[in-house]
Structure formats: C-alpha cells, structure tokens
C-alpha cells in the first residue's frame, strides 16, 4: 500500500460557544496533537491550516496564523478552503506532501469561532455571488436545503419524523461521555419531535448547531511513524472529489440542478462518488467498515449518508437505523462520537475532528463509546460548491 501516511497524534479543543478567538482553539488542539504524537513543534516541517471565512484575514491564511501562534520556526505552510470539506483538503495537502517525499512530519489544524444563529453569507451587496443571492431571492437558509432532502426521503422512501428523531436520540447517547462534545445530554424521541419546527419536516433538534472548536492531527511518513509508535493508525485514502456534469441533485447554494436533457446524468451520483473514490483507492468496500463518521447536518441527512457510503441500499437506511445496526454495539455504528448532533458544526475543524475520532477508535482509546475491535473506519462529509470529503483510516 504505497499511499499510506500515519496519524501519529490527534488533539481537539472542546466544541462549544466559547466566544474566543479561533486561534486559541487551534493552538490548543495542535499542542494536544503534538503531545499525543510525542513530536516537538520545532520538528514539524509543514503546517496545513483549514481556513475559516468568518474571522477576518487571519482566518483566510490559517496555516500561517497557527504557525505564527505556535512560534515561527520557518516551517512551510498551506491554507486551504473547501467549505465543510475544508479539513479533508488540509489533510490531503499534508498527506500528498508526505507521500511526495517533501516532508516527514506535518501538522494539520482547523478551528472556528461561529456567530449566533443561521449561517449567513458575508456582508455587502454581492449580486454575482450565488451564496448571497440564495438568501436574497429565495430566503434559502441551509436548513431549507436540509428540509428539501428530508421531505424527499419521506415521500420517496417512507421515512417518518420518528426515524429522523431516532437519529438524534442515537447520536445524543453516543456523545454522552465524549468530553469534546458540546451537547452531552440524552434526548428522547418526544423531545425531538416536540421541538419547534424550523424547516418542515425538520425540528430544531433535527438540525445541527454552529459551534466553536478546534481539531488537529500530526501526519507523518510511515517510516517516521515506525520509529515512534508500534502499529500506528494509517490514513489509507482521502477523497476530495467534485461532482460530474450534470449534477442532478439540488445542492447548496444553487438555484437549480444542472440540466440532464442533453448529457445523461452520471451513473454514480455525486454524493455516492465521495466514499466510493476512497474505497477504490484503498481497495476496500463498505462491507469492510467497522464504523463511520458521517456529516449529520440534519438527522435526515445521516440516513442519506448510509446509502451514499454503501452501508444501505437506496431506501434501506431507515431499516438499518430501526434495527439498531448503526447504534454502538450494532453491526456498523455511525457517529459514535456523537456526530454533529452533539458537536454542532465548526466548519474547518469538522473533518479533522472526524479523523481524531477514527484514530481514537482504531487505537481502542474511545472508552465508553469504543467500537470493539475496530480496524477500519470512514469519515465523510460534503462542502457546498461541490466539495466531496472522505477519509479512510485503518489499523
């Protein structure tokens, strides 16, 4: 397996609404990851920062921002952005650099400080920006898109409000003992279904919050890792795929899908292609997975992901959930970290935090939420404007 890098260290700053600078969370996560790896900051040759769009210029140059905060050492940097997929891009940039032999030790950091309420586009009059226009002309917040997918699931596959609520109930129990999670309270079906409707059929507790948080990983060459650890967790594939034309599922922040009238829709829809690319690169399949971390921006979206990553056939997600297969102790536990349901979204940190969770699970360090004997895990998400994100980790 030529395309493997080691995850030598992982670290996080707890998710919450702390109201401090994102740099603080990033630095705390980076120091935790370095300590976990047993690597000194001055030995890091390359820093990949996941950018944040809501924290001014330092957020657009996150790699340098974190490097400066940790103390300039002359390390080389890159700063990447891919919306919710930002973290996977930062991971992939560091991984590629290691695989190319350009460095042995890389630090990947993402952190965010988020405003209260709905995510809004950046300010000013920007009528050529679809992200601005979707708010102006449609009032299409993120939950509007989540609501469209959820209603479609109900109409096509017979999903129920109770199924959606059950996802939240499951994830809230998974995250109970996760010290990095923001929400650590078991909720009931009744509480979810009685919470205020935001974008019908989705209730407040079906939709993830926006959070502050930070996550970091130390990636190294396999050769370097073997000198520092026995049997380190390995990243065996990263997928940062974009859609193929025509993309026929309506996607944030678009007004429409591509037209499939002249060019037929691709055999594999975009969201299905995200994990598939990673499986193909690693020579594994969904049947080999021991756990999955998926991007539950809404409860209903978690069900979509079961099908997108191939652990259920189209329309089969509800049965998988109802049978308890995706609950800790089931055949293929999903979001044992508690997922976005317990974390809320800290955009550039999220995909990195997913890899932190996979690493703890594969090392057997996940305590109360440990998936017994986990050997292979996948983390997936999707960023608006066509960003796929999947990371496969193995031990």
């Amino acid at each position, binding site marked *: 397996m030529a395309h493997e890098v080691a995850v030598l260290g992982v670290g996080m700053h707890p998710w919450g609404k702390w109201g401090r600078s994102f740099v603080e969370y990033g630095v705390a996560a980076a120091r935790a990851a370095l300590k976990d790896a047993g690597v000194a900051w001055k030995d890091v040759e390359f820093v990949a920062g996941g950018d944040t769009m809501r924290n001014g210029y330092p957020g657009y140059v996150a790699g340098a921002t974190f490097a400066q905060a940790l103390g300039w050492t002359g390390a080389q940097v890159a700063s990447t952005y891919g919306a919710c997929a930002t973290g996977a891009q930062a991971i992939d940039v560091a991984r590629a650099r290691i695989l190319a032999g350009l460095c042995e030790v890389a630090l990947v950091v993402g952190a965010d400080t988020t405003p209260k309420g709905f995510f809004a586009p950046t300010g000013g009059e920007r009528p050529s920006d679809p992200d601005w226009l979707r708010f102006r002309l449609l009032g299409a917040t993120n939950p509007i898109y989540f609501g469209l997918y959820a209603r479609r699931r109900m109409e096509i596959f017979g999903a129920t409000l109770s199924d959606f609520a059950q996802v939240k109930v499951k994830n809230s129990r998974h995250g109970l003992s996760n010290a990095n999670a923001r929400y650590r309270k078991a909720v009931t079906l009744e509480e979810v279904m009685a919470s205020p409707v935001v974008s019908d059929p989705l209730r407040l507790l079906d939709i993830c919050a926006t959070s502050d948080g930070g996550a970091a990983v130390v990636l190294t060459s396999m050769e370097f890792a073997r000198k520092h650890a026995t049997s380190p967790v390995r990243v065996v594939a990263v997928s940062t795929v974009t859609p193929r034309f025509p993309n026929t599922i309506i996607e944030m922040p678009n007004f429409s899908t*591509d037209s*499939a009238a002249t060019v037929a829709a691709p055999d594999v829809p975009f969201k299905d292609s995200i994990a598939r690319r990673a499986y193909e690169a690693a020579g594994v399949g969904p049947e080999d997975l021991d756990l999955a971390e998926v991007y539950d921006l809404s409860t209903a979206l978690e069900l979509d992901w079961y099908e997108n990553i191939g652990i259920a056939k189209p329309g089969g997600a509800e049965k998988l959930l109802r049978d308890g297969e995706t609950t800790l102790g089931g055949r293929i536990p999903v979001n044992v970290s508690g997922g976005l349901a317990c974390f809320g979204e800290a955009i550039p940190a999220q995909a990195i935090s997913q890899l932190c969770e996979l690493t703890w699970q594969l090392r057997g360090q996940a305590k109360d939420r440990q998936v017994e004997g986990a050997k292979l895990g996948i983390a997936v998400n999707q960023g608006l404007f066509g960003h796929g994100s999947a990371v496969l980790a193995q031990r």
Partner: protein
Amino acid sequence: MGGAKKRVPAIEGWFRMNDAEPSLLGVRCSACRTIYFPREAFCRNPECGGGALEETPLSRRGKLWSWTDNRYAPPLPYMARDPFEPYTVAAVELEAEKMVVLGQVAPKVDATGFRVGQSMELVLDTLFEDDANEYIVWKWKPVAA
C-alpha cells in the same frame, strides 16, 4: 398613478416580467444545446467545445420534487417583512429541461396537501418593497395537472 410603487425585478434578466406568462430566462449553448439557469457566461458541459449562449425561456410548468418552509426570519440579505411571515420553498422539476429549480411558493398557499410529482406553475410575486419600488421575483404555485 399617484403613490403607486414601481414594479421592478428583484434581479435583472433572470425572468420575463410578464404577469400573464412569466418564465425564467436561461441560456442554451448553440453547440451542445445544454440549457443553464441561472444564465452562465460559458457552457459547463465538459464534452462541449463551448458555443455561444443564447437566451431561452424555460418551461413554465413542472413537477414538485420536494418542498419545505422557513418558520424563522433568515438573516440579511433576505429582506424579511416585519412581522416575519413564514414561506414555503419548492424544488420543481422541469420535464423538458430535466432540471430542478428552486423558488418560494406563492403566499397563502397551504402546503399541507403537497405531494411529490404534483404540477406547479411559475408566477410573479412581490419579494420585498421599499418606499419607491416593489421588487418582483418568480414563485411556484400549484396548478391542476
């Protein structure tokens, strides 16, 4: 007209300002015939060498793909009324174009009985107003098949 507000499109060139027969205005590539809405400056078909893009009206009717609503006022730049009035958003599939297009649903339409696949028609309606103008946008409205 004393005091009557001027009706202006909330965005220029995205739809025909014709109340009797409104339609969205897309573009069609002269080479591969692919249609785009909103209009594009280039043909995005990777198999196409790129032709001239010519304005073309889209079908005025389609089938409901999905719908949802907003119960809380979105942030700016949405110009929410005060008090806020919840609205429904529909995704409508245009058969000829094989394309799904979003739009708010016309006000006072009860979405309770909506079903995927039902017929929807394009209408024009006010998005917001200021002292001088009413800003008009396209919306979807159920129609008998």
